[in-house]
């Protein structure tokens, strides 16, 4: 078994028969490593991280998560999904359940935790994201920033070893971005393996161990944040950074 938490080896993926969305992806993520993925819209960033918990299936190559090679084997899938938590751009909270029920549903029914214990743990996670007083509200009664923090707390209730973030702040009003980034920064300091698709370059600089730049389904460049931002090697990266940092 390798000491990598996540390993992509020569991964190719197509949507339909013709659209080649991931091209020869090779990527190794160490245990506890924090990676930021950026790149133009449509470059395949979401697809890449969605292959890790198999929301999308790849067609060629292998994806290995904590020693388990992904396939259609439901047992493996179940194992992997227990290790991997995911936070979405649109939060995807369950609107018909209260915040607390959102957090306890999977622990009670998937992990078979007693209800009282699940609720106790959920309250701890809600305190961690500083939103415990909203436990009995419904998601749509909260602000976007609060909803995203609930979504983060929801995945934490399953004690994942890997956290995937897909543009977690893109749907938020500017004044709410910081409260979510603060929570993510706090998590990054706990040693959890993180892959984060984001264009928040401040976050990338202060938190990431490595920044990956994707374009047209390929990993074009990867480097530590300092060199990535100060000495981008490829022209495409330079053009992208110029655009992003101009804002």
């Amino acid at each position, binding site marked *: 078994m390798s000491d990598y938490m996540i390993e992509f080896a020569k991964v190719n993926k197509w949507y339909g028969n013709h659209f080649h969305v991931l091209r020869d992806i090779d990527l190794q993520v160490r245990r506890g490593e924090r990676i930021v993925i950026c790149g133009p819209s449509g470059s395949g960033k979401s697809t890449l991280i969605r292959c890790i*918990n198999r*929301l999308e299936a790849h067609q060629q190559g292998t994806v290995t998560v904590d020693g388990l090679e992904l396939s259609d084997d439901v047992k493996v899938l*179940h194992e992997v*999904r*227990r290790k*991997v*938590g*995911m936070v*979405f751009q*649109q939060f*995807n*909270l*369950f*609107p*018909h*359940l*209260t915040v607390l029920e959102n957090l306890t*549903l*999977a622990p009670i*029914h*998937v*992990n078979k935790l007693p209800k009282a214990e699940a609720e106790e743990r959920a309250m701890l996670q809600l305190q961690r994201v500083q939103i415990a007083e909203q436990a009995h509200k*419904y998601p*749509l*009664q909260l602000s976007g920033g609060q909803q995203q923090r609930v979504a983060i707390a*929801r*995945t934490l209730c*399953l004690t994942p070893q890997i956290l995937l973030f897909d543009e977690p702040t893109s749907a938020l009003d500017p004044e709410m971005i910081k409260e979510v980034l603060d929570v993510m920064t706090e998590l990054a300091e706990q040693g959890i393996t993180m892959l984060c698709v984001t264009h928040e370059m401040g976050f990338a600089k202060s938190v990431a161990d490595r920044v990956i730049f994707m374009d047209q389904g390929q990993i074009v460049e990867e480097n530590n944040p300092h060199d990535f931002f100060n000495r981008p090697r490829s022209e495409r990266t330079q053009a992208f950074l110029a655009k992003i940092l101009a804002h």
Partner: protein
Amino acid sequence: MNWLRSNLFNNVFNSSVTVLLGTLLLYALTQAWGWAIGQAVWVADAEQCHAARGTGACWGVVAEKYRIIIFGRYPFEEQWRPLLATLLLMALLLASCMRVFWQRWFAAVWVVVLTVFFILMHGGVLGLATVTTDQWGGLPLTILLASMSVLGAFPLGILLALGRMSDLPVIRSLCTVYIELIRGVPLISVLFMASFLFPLFMPEGTSIDVLVRVLVAMVLFAAAYLAEVIRGGLQAIPRGQYEAAVSLGMGYWLMQRKIILPQALATVVPGIMNNFISTFKDTSLVTIVSLYELTGSLDLAVNSDPDWMAYKLEGYLFIALIYFVFCFSLSRYSQWVERQVNRGKVH
């Protein structure tokens, strides 16, 4: 007053239309009132009714025949049994509509009440004379058919809707073919098949009760329509809900039960209730296969009696009132359910 002026009398044309329609309406109402109330005969007296023909309604037909209209061919001396059974079943249905009873243990109450219902209706035990299902009739039969069809069609409709949305091609095509097939034929032909055609395929000597066959037919029919209503609700659920559930490690059934179906069903409450109401009224078609539910037992009550044959219209109005009370209650209940399921949605 202001509303009247601005909506009904705001110009010459509108004013004259208002006056004209108002006059017509008034005329129709006084005529109807005179026929139904003013000139009507209330006692079961065929002579008086005959005298009032053309000017007044004969409600006496109801007074004379209500036992047959309500209970059909059920033996006269034993009619306390369907009465008691129906009251029990109605109480059960009413209770099931209330939130406090939405508990697991209530399923046991259902089993008990339905058993008691069957024992009372059918007899053959506890010293009760046996009354076979072909003698059941009237309101008890209507309520039994309606409630059991709904009870059966709901889970089946959900399964069909899920099947039609399934990723597995075989299941998807089977469900699609089934739904389209059933929707393509009228209920009457399904009932005919259930009652006349189906027994031909059974081995000699065996037979399934006609009531059961008709009930199965009604369930199969209602489920196909219900499935399409529910599918509409399923399509309204954003993909993100599935993705969140899957990434939290939920399996298919858990996800459907806790995440997708509660939301999907909540969005189509009016459509589901609509389906229940039609199913209730569709029970009147089983007359065609010789089960005398409410509509059939009315025929039974008046057609054979030359004294009262002429007053079938009054009889129809009477059972129309019964249908209306049930369907209107269902529709009011639907509005209450909508408010219940929308509670989490307030912004």
